[in-house]
């Protein structure tokens, strides 16, 4: 039976080599685009997820989040705990924070954002908030009475245009008044405006933790410690390591904290992705189907006569499947080259998303899946029309 495949290959090779090159080229190019489309969009989505994850770590949570023991509101001896955590292998640094809701007033406009006390120097080794200063400066270790305000919270001169409650356009050098839950009110000079593209920064106020301590009347208040580890991705293991080293506080990973949000993003991208994949594959099927169908209809008589002289229709069908496979192979190769060209272009001119530049994240699994689905679809698109059209009686085909 291998005989028949050989003859089909022999026939196909000549049909392709001596056939219409224009149609062939066009078909291959369409397949190439389909391949790029199959791989590119999911890669961009994966790239966005990578970016989003990095930003979640850099600006919101670090790798691990340490919170008070069950039933407690404060971490005991946070400075000591930070020292201890910093000594654990695999940890880069950790930093204590004290966060509380508070009322912030500027020029009679009042909002209730999250106010976060930080240790500016330690914070710099864990989080990248220092890098998001849009105007003014980051807090220095010796500052007192200074605040960093998120850009969204700072708002604009035309507060009616802001979508969330804002301070109506506070800028560096102005003074805001903060009233804490214990009733204590103090004025702070705005030292910098932050813009990180993440609401946990852009909608918050950052103070020196020392100021927070004074307000609360406590020496070393902290309700979270953020931890940066050497490698991202081994967060769950690092969480266990911390526990093994005797950290008795509650420990979360950044994924724990952002899981729901991330899942919702990935979920909605996933739907777009499925639709795009389906549309691409349908285009591939239809194009190959039409090309082969036209070729067969055009050769109807010729195929009828081949069948009349004793050539089985299965050989004709195999020949067309081989043609489809050839188109698919060339299309995938051309698509691969196109993809490399696009990636090189994007390396130089990255796509800028709200969170920053996105690099497509190519996954071998995805490429394999795209290639495989293209092949399956091609076999189908070669098989169906040739099966359908060679089903008719030989005499009908010969009479035309």
């Amino acid at each position, binding site marked *: 039976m291998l*005989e*028949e495949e*050989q*003859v089909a290959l*022999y*026939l196909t090779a*000549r*049909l392709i*080599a*001596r*056939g219409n090159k224009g149609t062939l080229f066009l078909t291959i190019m369409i397949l190439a685009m389909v391949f790029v489309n199959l791989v590119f969009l999911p890669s961009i989505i994966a790239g966005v997820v990578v970016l989003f994850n990095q930003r979640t770590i850099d600006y919101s949570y670090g790798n691990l989040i340490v919170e008070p023991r069950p039933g407690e509101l404060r971490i005991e001896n946070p400075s000591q705990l930070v020292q201890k955590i910093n000594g654990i292998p695999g940890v880069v640094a950790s930093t204590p924070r004290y966060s509380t809701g508070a009322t912030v007033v500027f020029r009679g406009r009042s909002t209730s954002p999250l106010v976060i006390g930080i240790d500016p120097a330690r914070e710099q080794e864990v989080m990248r908030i220092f890098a998001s200063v849009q105007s003014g400066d980051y807090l220095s270790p010796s500052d007192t009475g200074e605040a960093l305000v998120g850009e969204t919270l700072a708002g604009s001169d035309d507060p009616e245009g802001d979508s969330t409650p804002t301070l109506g356009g506070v800028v560096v050098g102005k003074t805001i008044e903060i009233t804490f839950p214990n009733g204590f009110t103090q004025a702070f000079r705005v030292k910098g405006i932050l813009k990180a593209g993440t609401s946990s920064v852009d909608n918050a106020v950052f103070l020196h933790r020392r100021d927070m301590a004074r307000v609360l009347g406590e020496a070393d208040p902290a309700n979270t410690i953020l931890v940066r580890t050497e490698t991202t991705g081994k967060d769950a293991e690092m969480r266990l390591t911390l526990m093994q080293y005797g950290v008795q506080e509650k420990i979360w990973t950044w994924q724990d904290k952002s899981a729901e949000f991330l899942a919702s993003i990935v979920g909605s991208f996933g739907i777009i992705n499925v639709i795009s994949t389906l549309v691409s594959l349908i285009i591939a099927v239809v194009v190959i189907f039409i090309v082969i169908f036209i070729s067969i209809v055009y050769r109807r*008589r*010729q195929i*009828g*006569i*081949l*069948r*009349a*002289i*004793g*050539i*089985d229709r299965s*050989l004709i069908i195999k020949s067309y499947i081989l043609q489809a496979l050839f188109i698919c192979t060339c299309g995938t190769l051309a698509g691969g080259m196109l993809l490399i060209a696009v990636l090189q272009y994007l390396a130089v001119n990255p796509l800028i998303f709200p969170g920053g530049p996105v690099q497509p994240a190519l996954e071998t699994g995805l490429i394999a899946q795209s290639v495989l689905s293209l092949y399956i679809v091609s076999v189908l698109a070669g098989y169906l029309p040739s099966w359908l059209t060679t089903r008719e*009686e*030989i*005499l009908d085909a*010969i009479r035309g």
Partner: protein
Amino acid sequence: MRSGGNMIRGEGLTRIYRMGASEVRALDGVDLNIPRGEFVGVMGASGSGKSTLLHMIGLLDRPTAGVLEIDGVDVTRLSERQRTLFRLNRLGYVFQDYALVPELTAQENVYLPSKVRGMSVRECNLVCQDILERVGLKDRMNFLPGEMSGGEQQRVAIARALVNRPALLLADEPCANLDTKNSVLILDLIRSLNRELGQTVMMVSHEEWHRQYFDRVIFLRDGKIVDEVGAGSAP
């Protein structure tokens, strides 16, 4: 090839086309016995059933009724797959138009059915060259159909029909698209194949002057044999 016995034996061959309430008797009880090695002509007016008869014998269609034996095989009992193999191995068919695969050279067009039959590449090449030489196309072997004249293409089609050494060569008006000069060439060729190789041939024609080539002529009218002239069977 077995000597003796008939190549074709048909009894009461009937083919009825039903079209709604009416029916057309394209073949209406044809009896025929064609001995091996004969060159038989089938003649008659257009619509008299010549092609229909050839289609039956060529296993492209099944008779509505009747007995049909070819080369000693009761072909009415064969399955579809067996019929395909029978056509490949024992029959050669030439049509009015040559219907070569335009992307294949003369040699490759002939090569195709021999390759399907499972001959080795060496064997195929030998046989193809041999048969193309036989039909006088030795120097046209690597030409594509588009580069050849109608007569040359029909000779390639004949070579393709003969490459598997069929027991029976069937030709349905093979000269209909050719001028007289090329028709003579084709008829001479078929005649010499018949004479020199002992090839049994059944050929449809409605040109009166073709008669001189045939050993025997079967005349059809309205699906019936109305006359039979030639070797052995006195009219």
